[in-house]
């Protein structure tokens, strides 16, 4: 073989950028989201109003923010079922602390510390003791919600002490061009997550662990610390979502975030994260969350009976993966 050919071959990329994009599930779900938006703008007057868009974008954020953390977990090949309960517990810690008269910084610090401790607990059991992630986080799902009941004595917390108004405007306000604050946080967090995944060594290792954990260990990737970090980030994202959601709702009850874990996982998966590990993006998490919210919102606007909601959302979950399956199927047989 001539050297020039070898040079050429090595210089080539197997796929063009375009074919890479066209082959990605995230792209097609994105197209679905855009198509749905266009359709809804024509089909109903209520959709493309600034008010509705404000609501939709804000509703997306809580699932989307946690889906960012969950995506990291899923990329490493794990899963975190505890996020809904962790959100509730972190909200409660924030609420109870502020209600007791502490400032918002103390409240947020306590809340984030709680998230990190729980994440570290999950992570250490999973990474160092080799527990299955499903089992550990399923246990934590129970434990964290129970602790939230204990922390709040199961009352509704709705008075947040001296910084009450600050907390509410943090979560409920729109400080920037009329975009709901939570949306801003979501965008910032997504940019950070995207950056970390693509441009940092940590991000590279997250993918490597999901691709082949054994290989990562052999080549000297600090697999265990990174897995712990990933579960801490997941819990942290739930904690942050909890803080923002508290500011938005203005009250905390112990049913906050119940069942949220499955929605979050659905968002990540719809956005292209692969539960077998190794694949997933920050953008995907956002797009997945957006699709779920748009379905929910549009059914209401189109006057479709709310009972059918689950059917549409469930079908969307399955259909999102269908595209990826068809592509794989074509390639293999």
């Amino acid at each position, binding site marked *: 073989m001539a050297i020039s050919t070898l040079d050429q071959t090595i210089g080539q990329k197997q796929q063009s950028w375009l074919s890479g994009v066209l082959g990605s599930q995230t792209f097609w779900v994105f197209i679905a989201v855009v198509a749905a938006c266009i359709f809804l703008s024509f089909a109903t007057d209520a959709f493309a*109003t600034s008010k509705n868009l404000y609501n939709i974008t804000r509703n997306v954020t809580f699932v989307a923010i946690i889906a960012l953390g969950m995506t990291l977990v899923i990329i490493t090949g794990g899963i975190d079922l505890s996020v809904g309960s962790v959100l509730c517990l972190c909200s409660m810690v924030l609420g109870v602390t502020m209600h007791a008269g502490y400032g918002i910084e103390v409240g947020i610090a306590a809340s984030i510390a709680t998230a990190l401790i729980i994440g570290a607990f999950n992570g250490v059991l999973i990474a160092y003791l080799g527990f299955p992630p499903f089992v550990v986080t399923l246990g934590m799902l129970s434990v964290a919600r*129970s602790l939230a009941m204990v922390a709040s004595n199961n009352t*509704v917390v709705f008075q947040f002490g001296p910084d009450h108004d600050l907390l509410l405007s943090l979560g409920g306000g729109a400080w920037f061009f009329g975009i709901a604050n939570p949306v801003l946080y979501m965008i910032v967090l997504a940019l950070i997550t995207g950056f970390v995944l693509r441009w940092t060594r940590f991000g590279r290792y997250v993918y490597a662990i999901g691709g082949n954990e054994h290989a990562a260990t052999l080549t000297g990737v600090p697999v265990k610390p990174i897995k712990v970090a990933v579960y801490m980030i997941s819990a942290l994202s739930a904690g942050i979502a909890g803080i923002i959601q508290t500011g938005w709702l203005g009250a905390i009850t112990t*049913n906050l975030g*119940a069942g949220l874990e499955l929605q979050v996982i659905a968002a990540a998966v719809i956005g292209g994260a692969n539960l077998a590990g190794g694949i997933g993006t920050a953008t995907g998490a956002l797009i997945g969350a957006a699709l779920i919210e748009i379905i929910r919102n549009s059914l209401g606007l*189109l*006057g479709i009976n709310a009972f059918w909601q689950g059917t549409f959302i469930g079908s969307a979950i399955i259909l999102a993966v269908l595209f990826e399956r068809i592509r794989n199927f074509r390639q293999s047989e």
Partner: protein
Amino acid sequence: QKKQLVIVVKGLDNPFFEAINQGCQKWNSENASSEYECFYTGPASTSDEAGEAQIVQDMLGKPSTVAIAISPSNAKLIAQTIKTAAPTIPVMTLDADLAKEDAALRKTYLGTDNYLMGKRIGDYMKEALPKGGKVCSIQGNPGADNILRRAQGWRDSLSGQEGLTELKGEGGWTEVAGCPVFTNDDGAKGVQAMTDILAANPDLVGFGIMGGWPLFGAPQPYRDLFKPLAEKIAANEFVIGAADTIGEEVAIAKEGLVTALVGQRPFEMGYKAPTVMIDLIGGKPVEDPVFTGLDECTKDTADTCIQK
């Protein structure tokens, strides 16, 4: 060990029941030397209806249980549970009753006159907006008898007729598509649904909220949703009647974001229940039902409407 007067509620995740618990604990602290104690329990989530039935059975099977007061989240299911358990101790209902035809399964009902409560919610709405319009009701568990009775009272008040299961223009009132909304006592879910329904029906004129969940569970989004409508609410062009006076609800009324609140007295329920149960144990005659009062709040009466 003391003899236990057990209270089983719909779910621990609803702060309404915590007020019942506090009444129960107050009774305990005031009756520390009694041979009885009040014991409060329930499933973690209001949506866990089978879980409530299991707890009822556990409690009925416990020798220390001498009486039980239940708030059924699914009236039929708890009725069946009582039927099969065939308890020898007195059973009463609290906050929510069994269906009328199952009344014989419990000795009495202690709590709000839910039909009346719904009727009062409707009365306020009708009074504010006599010509009616498109409305939507927000409800809890589809099987909760107290909420269903409130909804009936509400419909009866608005329509001026009895027993309608859906308003289709009677008395000028129409329920829009997608209603009633069942929230399983989840506030955020309630507000989200209300937001969408309002967007889809710009000509909506009101909500009848049969439990305070959206107001006490998600007060800020509730405010955000109705602040733009504050003037219409003040002018009685948009009317909201809501149940309960929990958490931020009264504050919201004061801000003029709800036409009227019809509140209950859960603390009183929890506090009275042990006494009623002791009476039942002792075979004393007990009224059926025993109603606790209502607290009705509007913007103007918000400071004084709650009975201490």
